[in-house]
């Protein structure tokens, strides 16, 4: 422990306060990504069900939403929501300003809507790939549409969505790095601050990269565990 303190004392870049700065950034990154994913997941379930509808008036609006959000860069979406809201006339005097004063909420909205679009398409894919025999069996048991969805289609679809969804989680983690461009102190923002103090690029960004790598591996590990548990029945024997 003493040697560690001595090591930190000797270091010019990674001082104690710098390490605290990184920690704050990492907490913000994890929090932002987690909340965005949660919001995206909650939005995506009804949207995916609507997306599989045969009625074009239900299906097309959702298709339009996912097409727009998947076809444009996340950075543009963030800028539109962040600058779009903060530059509206009179917003700074309204009650909404309490929420939009900080970049955090526009950022959360942009990330949440973005990941919801990708997650919707992932869920649509697995819902449509549900074994026809299972649906016929459910119908033969006299289950209605809602019961079929709840008991048969969704539980199996969620399980089969796990591998694709784990990729989306990692993309969201990596995408969240742009939060630093709208004044949020995330992990990338912390590295940029340290860079601005010392004007050497390698140590601060390498350290941030290593932390992101660790987060990525953690996510992969968690999803591997989940897959082993929930997709055991699909493993090759």
């Amino acid at each position, binding site marked *: 422990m003493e040697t560690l303190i001595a090591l930190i004392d000797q270091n010019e870049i990674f001082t104690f306060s710098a390490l605290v700065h990184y920690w704050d950034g990492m907490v913000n990154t994890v929090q932002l990504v987690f909340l965005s994913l949660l919001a995206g997941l909650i939005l995506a379930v009804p949207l995916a069900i609507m997306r599989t509808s045969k009625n074009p008036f239900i299906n097309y609006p959702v298709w339009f939403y996912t*097409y*727009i959000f998947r*076809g*444009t*860069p*996340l*950075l*543009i979406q963030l*800028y*539109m929501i962040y*600058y*779009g809201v903060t*530059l509206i006339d009179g917003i700074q005097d309204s009650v909404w300003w309490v929420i939009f004063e900080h970049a955090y909420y526009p950022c959360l909205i942009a990330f949440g809507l973005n990941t919801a679009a990708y997650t919707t398409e992932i869920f649509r894919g697995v819902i449509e790939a549900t074994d026809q025999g299972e649906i016929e069996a459910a119908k033969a048991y006299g289950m209605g549409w809602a019961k079929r969805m709840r008991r048969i289609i969704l539980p199996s679809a969620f399980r089969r969505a796990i591998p694709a969804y784990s990729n989306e989680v990692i993309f969201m*983690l*990596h*995408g*969240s*790095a*742009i939060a*630093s*461009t709208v004044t949020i102190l995330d992990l*990338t923002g912390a*590295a*940029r601050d340290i*860079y601005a103090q010392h*004007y*050497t*690029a*390698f140590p601060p*960004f*390498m350290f*941030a*990269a290593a932390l*992101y*790598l660790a987060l*990525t*591996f953690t996510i992969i590990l968690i999803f591997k565990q989940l897959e082993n548990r929930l997709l055991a029945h699909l493993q090759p024997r």
Partner: protein
Amino acid sequence: MLDLHGYGPSIFGGAILTIELAVLSLVIAFLLGLIGASAKLSKRRTPRYMATAYTTVIRGVPDLVLMFLIYYGGLNGLNAVTDWLYEISDGEIDMVIRFNEFAAGVVTIGFIYGAYMAETFRGAFLAVDHGQIEAGKAYGMTSKQIFKRIMFPQMMRHALPGLGNNWQVLLKTTALVSIIGLSDMVKLATDAAKSVGEPFLFFIPVALVYLVLTALSEWGFRILRVRYSAGVVGA
């Protein structure tokens, strides 16, 4: 053409830069991907480990962080070299090398997506029937001929869906170069939005350009898929 308070032409000029950046990065990523995939499938251990380290690290770190690392790191490195030359020549060599942001952007994005391409190509190479390669050898083809005539055309058919995905992601990633100061359409639109105070007026046309590029790419890849599926029944 849209005027947009006089900013229109310059923003659409930025769109050209975005396309150039994306296409040139794709070329680099394609080549790095082929090299990376070959290294991953190599029988020798060193290239295999190096390629695995490359694809794992690059795919585990955000594009923006890598961009800062390569861009600012490159800037630091260049300064160190010119300072060093100045030192050892007692001020004789006093040069200022202009750091080319465009080239830095192309190299960075190409380097990042090379890792994704390597994974795509690796899977595609493995999907080519081994009997085909043996047949090529039996005909007395050299390994270069086998690659050009047998491996590459068949590998491409399997690689195209993944390649198309990578390209779409790459295209959208080019927006990040605006953060390191390159004047692509996102940067120009942001500057204009800030000075005029009407963000939607500028961001919506930019978003539309991305949507058009995405749609055009989908169409282009459909044509490529037909081309590379020639001779495959049921494709």
